């Protein structure tokens, strides 16, 4: 999984989709699931393997917010910016995270421990404001609690 190439595993996945119409988006999903992003080398190999121009692959990757071109930090923090969360103080939560981690949204912390993302509605409006670290959802987040929450994920610095 560490080699960002078109490994045998990925080839198997690609084979599954190969003869289906319009499968490029789904193949990219599989690749991102495996690596956490879509590495350039993988795209190059994929282009040869599927006989699809690299530009076409990149055109798709860059269009969709979900696909990433850079390796994300170990833990992904997703701050929900849905309307309910926005009204109930999500901007304050985001600001606090930015300050604590010294990072801008869409980027990784310097130590690579966290990636900070802003997302559209996690669908837990009843718990607003909400943030998610990896797959764990934190509801009714208060600014003062963030430091503690982050400390569950190892050292910050």
């Amino acid at each position, binding site marked *: 999984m560490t080699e960002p190439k078109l490994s045998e595993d990925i080839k198997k996945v690609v084979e599954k989709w190969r003869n289906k119409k319009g499968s490029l988006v789904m193949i990219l999903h599989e690749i991102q699931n495996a690596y956490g992003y879509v590495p350039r080398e993988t795209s190059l190999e994929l282009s040869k393997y599927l006989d699809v121009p690299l530009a076409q692959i990149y055109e798709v990757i860059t269009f969709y917010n979900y696909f990433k071109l850079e390796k994300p930090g170990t833990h992904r923090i997703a701050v929900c910016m849905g309307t309910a969360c926005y009204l109930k103080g999500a901007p304050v939560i985001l600001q606090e995270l930015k300050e604590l981690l010294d990072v801008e949204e869409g980027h990784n912390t310097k130590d690579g421990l966290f990636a900070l993302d802003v997302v559209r509605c996690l669908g837990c*409006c009843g*718990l607003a404001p909400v943030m998610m670290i990896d797959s764990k959802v934190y509801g009714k987040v208060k600014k003062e609690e963030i430091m503690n929450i982050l400390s569950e994920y190892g050292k910050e610095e």
Partner: protein
Amino acid sequence: MTKLTKASFDQHKAEIQATSKNWIKVGMSTCGIAAGAEEVYKILLEEAKKKNLSIEIKKCGCLGMCYAEPLVEVHVEGVPQVIYGKVNKDIAIKILEKHVGTKMLVNDYIFDLALTMKEVRK
């Protein structure tokens, strides 16, 4: 499983509809899980086994009352069917002891919205 046909469909349905017993349902959609439903579900399973209670513990979807998650609905013969909200470990155990065990409703956690939600059933 053999594939259903016109005839076997109704037969299958009659068979499964006949079974009715006591159950507890835990709302396990994204919002419920975010509020801690998984832990509640686990503790219910464990404790029911420990206490040797004959009750089925099931997962279900979202009842819509996000503000009161995690939600647990209890159906025990002889006690009104109710929904408990904001359930944590302790309340889950209390529900088993009191509601299931001694057939008494538990104070302070019932969200009685049965009347505000009319369902479309037969």
